[in-house]
């Protein structure tokens, strides 16, 4: 069922994902969101999505660049997801701010960057469907060199969260309206 919904949502997501990269970024010849599996210098290992608690989610993993030039992740897209960005946490005294990494996340030539809680993550916003532990989500990351890579990330349980997806709890018959937020226009 999940897959069906994701497929159905894909078209809408592709339209929405226009806000991330398809136009106006340095990558003139932006490839289609669903990329071929061309040998890319950039790979993501141990990718996972932490079990989301709302309609935003975070993907973690280790991004490696085996190429001879630095590459920047400029954005991305995923089926059923309104917006995909690379975010970072900035601690500011006693408070924290989450923000898009200015200019994108650069992966140095021959190096790697770890995406982990409290640091960088790929932020998935306006998730249309409630993901459950065990689902797999394919996230396409757009790169500054014009390539894009597909990353398949399982949704992993977070200790301390219920896993039965019964987010609606006790007073819920009418409450499937998380997306009614004014967050994105």
């Amino acid at each position, binding site marked *: 069922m999940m897959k069906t919904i994701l497929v159905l949502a894909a078209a809408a997501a592709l339209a929405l994902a226009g806000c991330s990269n398809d136009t106006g970024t340095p990558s003139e010849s932006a490839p289609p969101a669903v990329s071929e599996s061309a040998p890319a210098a950039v790979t993501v290992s141990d990718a996972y999505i932490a079990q989301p608690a709302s309609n935003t989610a975070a993907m973690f993993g280790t991004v490696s660049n085996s190429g001879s030039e630095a590459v920047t992740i400029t954005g991305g897209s995923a089926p059923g997801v309104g917006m995909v960005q690379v975010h970072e946490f900035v601690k500011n005294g*006693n408070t924290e701010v989450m923000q898009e990494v200015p200019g994108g996340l650069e992966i140095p030539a021959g190096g790697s960057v770890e995406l982990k809680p409290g640091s960088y993550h790929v932020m998935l916003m306006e998730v249309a469907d409630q993901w459950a532990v065990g689902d797999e989500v394919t996230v396409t990351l757009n790169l500054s060199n014009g390539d894009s890579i597909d990353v398949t990330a399982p949704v992993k349980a977070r200790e301390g969260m219920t896993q039965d997806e019964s987010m609606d709890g006790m007073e819920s018959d009418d409450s499937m309206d998380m997306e009614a937020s004014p967050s994105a226009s």
Partner: protein
Amino acid sequence: MKRLAGMALAGVLALVGCAATDDAPVAQVITPSNTTGFMGTTLDQPLPKPDVTLTDTDGKSFNVAKDTKGRVTALYIGYTHCPDVCPTTMADLSVAMGSLPPDQAKDVDVVFITTDPDRDTPKVIRKWLNSFSWDRLIGLTGEYSDIQAAAKSVGVFLDPPVKNPDGTITVEHGAQVILFGKDDTSDLIFTSGFEPSDVAHDLQRLLQE
């Protein structure tokens, strides 16, 4: 800071899991807590419980200081659309609460205050809190100015949420869980990335005081 505390305690307890957060300076911090036997970071000046009236997830008014008076309380200031630190913190708190014996856990309140009241209605907060394993989480929202003042009273300085040109919203939130004792003051905080067992340990100590 936590690392300092951990080092000081290392001889006694080899288990402090420094979860790698930067040692961000925390206002008023000061003494490594080992002399007190607490795992968290202790503050020089005790903080009072915020005397602020907000709205709980049933839509009822809730005054933090009055409605948790005399009870050990864990306070976290965050928002539900945060994918990373906020749910991790609430999940870790839930683990800590679930590890306490029930007759102790019933004497502890866990309070979440949103910093994003425009989006975090009582219903949205309840739905979010219900995704965590501890089932007695208290969620509060209200006027932003009240929330900001409450946060400031416990050393968390917030700027209003910023709407970015791309439609996303940047929201600040507290980086720590504040633990209040039965005397309704706190000199004990945990920064994000804490070990649930450390919080459970300190809650038990506060209950015994």
